[in-house]
């Protein structure tokens, strides 16, 4: 129960003013600009866009500045802003085959057409602190090479040719949208993917890791991981045809999973899918593993009772804004609630004492 209590206004105003001062920090240190955050903390910006579910690097950078680097707070700000935007429509499905790949690797085929392109990766670094970064800020010279011509086909299409990979069923062109209707179970794959792609990176990572450690193990290989820009096309109602309305950088992960066959399906490879805004490869790989684990029912697999197979558990706990909203509300005043709890405990104490005295 909540009862309005007055008297906090002045304290609240002063607290927020102090917050603003602390946000700025020591004024003898140069202030951080939004453009600096956007350019130099790009992976934080990407995470805020992915989990805030709104692609706008400038807004995400602003949110990071405002939240003093608390990314969940920044995501909260973006989600709140998002609700104020009129929805102009939905895009055509992005064609990731046409991605201008900054990075594209396969753990299954060494000589895949298009090749293994490492891109700007942390992989193979030694994870030693680089004290040069504390000293100077010069951009190093980057090597270039002749650009290959032709597309970079999806690795999955090669397995598909041999008929060794499970088909992806078609679905409605306008998918269910959890920003428009509350999530109900059982959820369509479209809703599962939407909720995973905006879900908390840490939570999805933990769930994915649990499948690797043996809770609904699904033997995932990364058939392909690609990062790059894709155009976003939308039908323009005034014109009656589709044009590109922009370009987004995405990370896509396709896993291929060993599958011995089930009551309904022949032995084949099955697939998990991750697609996330920005350069967010840990999240995309995690998403693919969890997507695959959640597909046990449609593939006729056994439910072994693993957390990652439990749609309700995964989908209802993946959203860090819902989670933090409920979690953090318990620090707000609950004086009346607690008064009644206190009364109850005192009464039980008195009764217990009376019984004990009577027994003696």
């Amino acid at each position, binding site marked *: 129960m909540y009862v309005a209590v007055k008297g906090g206004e002045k304290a609240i105003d002063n607290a927020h003013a102090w917050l603003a001062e602390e946000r700025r920090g020591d004024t003898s240190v140069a202030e951080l600009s939004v453009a600096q955050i956007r350019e130099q903390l790009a992976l934080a910006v990407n995470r805020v866009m992915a989990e805030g579910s709104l692609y706008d690097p400038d807004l995400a950078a602003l949110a990071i500045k405002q939240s003093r680097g608390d990314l969940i707070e920044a995501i909260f700000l973006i989600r709140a802003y998002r609700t104020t935007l009129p929805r102009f429509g939905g895009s055509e499905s992005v064609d990731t085959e046409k991605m201008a790949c*900054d990075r594209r690797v396969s753990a299954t085929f060494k000589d895949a057409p298009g*090749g293994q392109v490492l*891109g700007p990766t942390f992989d193979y670094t030694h994870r030693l602190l680089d004290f040069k970064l504390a000293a100077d800020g010069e951009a190093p010279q980057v090597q270039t*090479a002749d650009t290959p011509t032709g597309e970079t086909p999806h690795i999955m299409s090669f397995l598909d040719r041999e008929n060794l990979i499970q088909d992806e069923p078609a679905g409605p062109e306008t998918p269910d949208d959890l920003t428009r209707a509350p999530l109900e179970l059982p959820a369509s794959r479209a809703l599962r993917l*939407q909720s995973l792609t905006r879900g908390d990176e840490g939570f999805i990572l933990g769930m994915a890791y649990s499948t690797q450690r043996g809770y609904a193990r699904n033997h995932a290989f990364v058939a392909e991981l690609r990062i790059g820009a894709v155009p976003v096309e939308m039908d323009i109602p005034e014109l009656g*045809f589709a044009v590109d309305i922009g370009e*987004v950088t995405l990370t896509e992960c396709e896993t291929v999973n060993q599958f011995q066959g089930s009551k309904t399906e022949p032995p084949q490879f099955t697939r998990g899918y991750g697609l996330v805004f920005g350069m967010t490869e840990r999240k995309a790989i995690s998403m693919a593993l969890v997507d695959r684990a959640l597909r046990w029912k449609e593939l006729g697999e056994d439910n072994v009772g693993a957390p990652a197979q439990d749609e309700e558990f995964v989908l209802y706990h993946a959203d860090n804004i819902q989670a933090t909203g409920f979690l953090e509300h318990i620090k707000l005043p609950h004086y009346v609630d607690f008064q009644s709890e206190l009364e109850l405990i005192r009464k039980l104490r008195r009764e217990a004492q009376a019984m004990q005295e009577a027994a003696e």
Partner: protein
Amino acid sequence: MAEMNDPNAARKTWMSLLAKSDAGVLADIWAKANILPDFRFLRAPEIGGVMVRGRAGAVGAAFNLGEMTVTRCSVTLGSGAVGHAYVQGRDKKKAEIAAQVDALMQTDLAAQVEATVLAPLRNIAETAKQARAAKAAATKVDFFTMVRGED
């Protein structure tokens, strides 16, 4: 082939180019072009969101990936030509310029707009894309197999 026969192909191309351009760069190029058409708004610039969709497994059922910010605007020129813009981001000026360019491209000024606005814009976009692709190409792995001494 279908795309080549598309009567709207040219318009699609310029609208797409404008939508993806950097707001600051477009404003600079537009100012330099110094074309000042007489226009009025059919729809003043409006900021909104578009739900971006993907496909499960890249080929299967569509799903909602998340939204992106988009600004739209429609103008009409004194000549009656109508221009529309749906452009990425929240820059109202960008949408206003894009709508004017779209309208002008349907008039006698098309060649001038193409040469002074679209061509430089295309050039910048192409150069940026090439530069990135060239850096990616330099990180391509060239595998070679070591001869194993098994004799």
